[in-house]
């Protein structure tokens, strides 16, 4: 199964608050995928009566409805994403983004969402690599980017958000929940480059990518505490997104495309 197919399947999945209506850009038709037990919310026109009679339980025909997709993406380009163990996390983020936009075919649209603007203008779908790699001159603003996505994207669009989410404060929970009901949202959470092994020992200096510095003694106690805190933060972020109906995945520095596929349960 491809990423696009996974997105199309997700559109047929009964969603908690009704997202998943088709876009106006209709594709090439329908493809039968499978039979499964009826779930409240399924379209009654999709009930397979013959199969129901055979099994004695209501059976729903799962149809892959091929429609034009809107693939939108928000990528955290803040300095905190420009550090990493072997390469910047942002590089992995862009790989994921290329893979995301690379899934588009036919009438699909690709949109980069930034604070106050969407790029490129509607209907452009070529040059997705350039779109994935284009830099934003202004600083990254997560809150404004989320609000821009909410205002500019069509209902049912697939939205991918990639970042380390340090800017995600409690005040944004409502925006996340709102986006989760309108769009098919996926959050890729950048894994801390040093999540498994902090390469510091002794008296060290640390400089923050977004300012600030620290001079301190790091020993085994600090390394263990750091590892535990990083794992805890990752788990908390995953739960936070899942609570508001977002698909989640971990962005690994070494494999951006694989990280995106992992979020959809696909194998690259």
């Amino acid at each position, binding site marked *: 199964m491809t990423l696009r197919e996974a997105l199309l399947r997700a559109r047929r999945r009964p969603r908690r608050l009704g997202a998943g209506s088709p876009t106006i850009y209709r594709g090439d038709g329908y493809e039968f995928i499978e039979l499964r037990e009826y779930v409240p919310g399924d379209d009654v026109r999709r009930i397979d009566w013959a199969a129901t009679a055979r099994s004695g339980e209501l059976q729903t025909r799962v149809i892959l409805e091929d429609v034009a997709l809107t693939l939108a993406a928000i990528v955290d380009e803040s300095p*905190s994403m420009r550090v990493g163990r072997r390469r910047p996390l942002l590089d992995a983020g862009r790989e994921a983004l290329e893979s995301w936009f690379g899934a588009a075919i036919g009438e699909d649209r690709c949109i980069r969402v930034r604070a106050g603007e969407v790029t490129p203008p509607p209907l452009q779908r070529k040059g997705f690599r350039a779109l994935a790699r284009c830099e934003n001159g202004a600083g990254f603003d997560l809150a404004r980017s989320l609000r821009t996505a909410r205002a500019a994207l069509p209902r049912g669009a697939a939205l991918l958000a990639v970042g380390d989410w340090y800017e995600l404060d409690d005040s944004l929970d409502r925006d996340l929940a709102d986006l989760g009901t309108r769009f098919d949202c996926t959050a890729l959470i950048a894994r801390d480059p040093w999540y498994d092994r902090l390469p510091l020992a002794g008296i060290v200096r640390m400089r*923050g990518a977004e300012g600030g510095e620290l001079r301190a*003694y790091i020993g085994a106690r600090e390394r263990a505490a750091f590892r535990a805190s990083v794992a805890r933060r990752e788990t908390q972020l995953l739960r936070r997104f899942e609570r508001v109906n977002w698909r989640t995945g971990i962005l690994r520095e070494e494999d951006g495309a694989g990280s995106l596929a992992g979020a959809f349960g696909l194998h690259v």
Partner: protein
Amino acid sequence: MSIDHPLRLVLGVIAIGLFAVLYGALQRRRTSHDLAYSNVAFFAEAARPRRWIPRALQALWIAALAAVVLGVSGAHLTMPVPVRDGNVFICIDTSGSMASTDVFPTRAQAAKTAARAFIRESPAGTKIGIISFAGAAGVVEPLSADRQSVIAALDEVPLPDGATAIGDALKLAAQQLPNTGHRVVILITDGVNNAGADPMEMAQWLGAHHVPVYTVGIGTPNGGLIPGTNEEATIDEEALRGYADASGGAYARAENAAQLRDALARLGHVTAFARKPVDASFGFAFAGALAMLVAFLAGFGLGRYP
């Protein structure tokens, strides 16, 4: 503290200041050893690194440098040093009020017992003399290093009777003490000066000649009647404190025999030690060098040379 070479001290302080500035500049310099991290605030909360260790190491470096500078500058410290040739006069009040029994068995007996213990425990070589005073003062035992003879002389202290001439006792002690060396006067009394020379003047004179007077007031707060009279024995504590302060000594109050013994025992150090300027330049230099070595090794041991 006194300094032999103030110019070296000034140059040393300037050097420490330059070191601190250079140290700070090196700390601010961006180097390849620095780890760039996404969010320092998160790291500080997550790892809870011990920030005080590098600060302590930095402080150790500065303290080590300061000690070396003091050593090179020839620092002298005024500190207690043991003395073996001290001169102590114990002035014991033998006025009539010392017969009072509010301190068991009598104030006079308690004073003698405490003085005896004090003499026994004083360092060998310390010369001790005894003066008794009532309406007038007299030497019971001149300064002597022979403790046994001084202890025996306590038995010759007259029985309590008469007025209280504290000034005369201090004057006599001043006359008997040598002109140099470690000299101390211990005054044990229960009364108010009512005869002879002005004690405050004598205390000031002794203080000016570096002879501290340690005064010990003996008697209960309620006092007691002087036997055979209707007069009450009271202590002029303010005056006794004043004599001690004027001469650079200290005042202690004893309401019973045990407190009197303790008060005299505490005075043991004033005969065993004298505050003298001591050349501490070697000590400072050595301590500074040692601290530098510790800071250097700690810097390596903790992972980084600061």
